[in-house]
């Protein structure tokens, strides 16, 4: 693949591979901020599933959490890109990484289209539950895909 060949030697990657603390530090940012992003999505999903915040509408919960979801996603993705450039060739050939990227793209698109639409409208409890369950499943797949990068 041409793209990873181009990014293989790069200053950020060099730093990550040569400074002892650089890679774990980027990982820590990645973990804390994906927790923030997914945790806030889950608050809305619990409501969609009818498990918590029954007095609140999904829309009002989303209004309070969306900015934290976005900050969490942006930082987690930036930290993730930093990790990626440490060894682009390995990651692009890692099937779990490919699965994670697919799940991530689907999860982001789903979150800002279907999920957003259902959350902001007064949908039935059934529709809410299905949309919430799919969201939980998608975001969990992203995390699990990430774990298996190091295990396969």
């Amino acid at each position: 693949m041409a793209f990873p060949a181009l990014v293989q030697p790069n200053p950020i990657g060099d730093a990550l591979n040569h400074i002892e603390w650089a890679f774990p530090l980027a990982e820590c940012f990645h973990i804390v901020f994906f927790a923030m992003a997914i945790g806030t999505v889950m608050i809305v999903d619990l409501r969609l599933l009818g498990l918590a915040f029954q007095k609140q509408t999904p829309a009002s919960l989303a209004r309070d959490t969306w900015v934290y979801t976005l900050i969490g996603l942006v930082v987690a993705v930036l930290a993730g890109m930093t990790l990626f450039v440490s060894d682009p060739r390995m990651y692009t050939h890692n099937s779990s990484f490919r699965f994670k990227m697919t799940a991530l793209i689907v999860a982001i698109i789903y979150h800002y289209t279907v999920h957003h639409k259902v959350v902001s409208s007064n949908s039935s409890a059934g529709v809410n539950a299905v949309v919430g369950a799919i969201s939980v499943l998608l975001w969990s797949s992203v995390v699990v895909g990430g774990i298996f990068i190091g295990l396969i």
Partner: protein
Amino acid sequence: MSLYSICDSIQSSGLMTHVRETPWVYPIIMSIHVVCIAVFGGMILMTDLRLLGVGLKDKTVAEVVGGLRPFKRIGFVVMVTCGLLMAGTEAPQYYRNPYFWTKMALLVLVGVHAMMFKSTVYDHPEELDKSPVLPTRAKAAAAFSLILWVSLPVFGRLIAYYEPDESKASQTATFVLK
């Protein structure tokens, strides 16, 4: 019986051998552990931001604390169970790992935090909503909790980076054999 030999017996127990050697069991436990960090850790962060008066300001403290509490409890139990299973499979290595012990110390501090703030903050969130500004004790509880819950996954991650000094490791092993 030394702590090291206890660790060794934990590792050799039937359950831990099963977790370590059956295909997929360990990765699945690890996945559950990290998914819980994302889901419930994220909820802890948001509760703390509410107590600090930074996030979720449209909701009362009582709604946020009360609404998320049962889920955070379930998450904590699942996270700790999975964590103990993972540590148990390699107990003697964890015994030598300073990051692991730091993480255990942080978990003790989680208990201290609960004892300090349970009755004054978390059990009576509606009291906090009554005051015009959030009381210092609520902000202190949140700040302490934020520090703990950012440090916990960080030290959890660092456990994997510890490389024991091999000469010292073999010394410990010799000592135990004697």
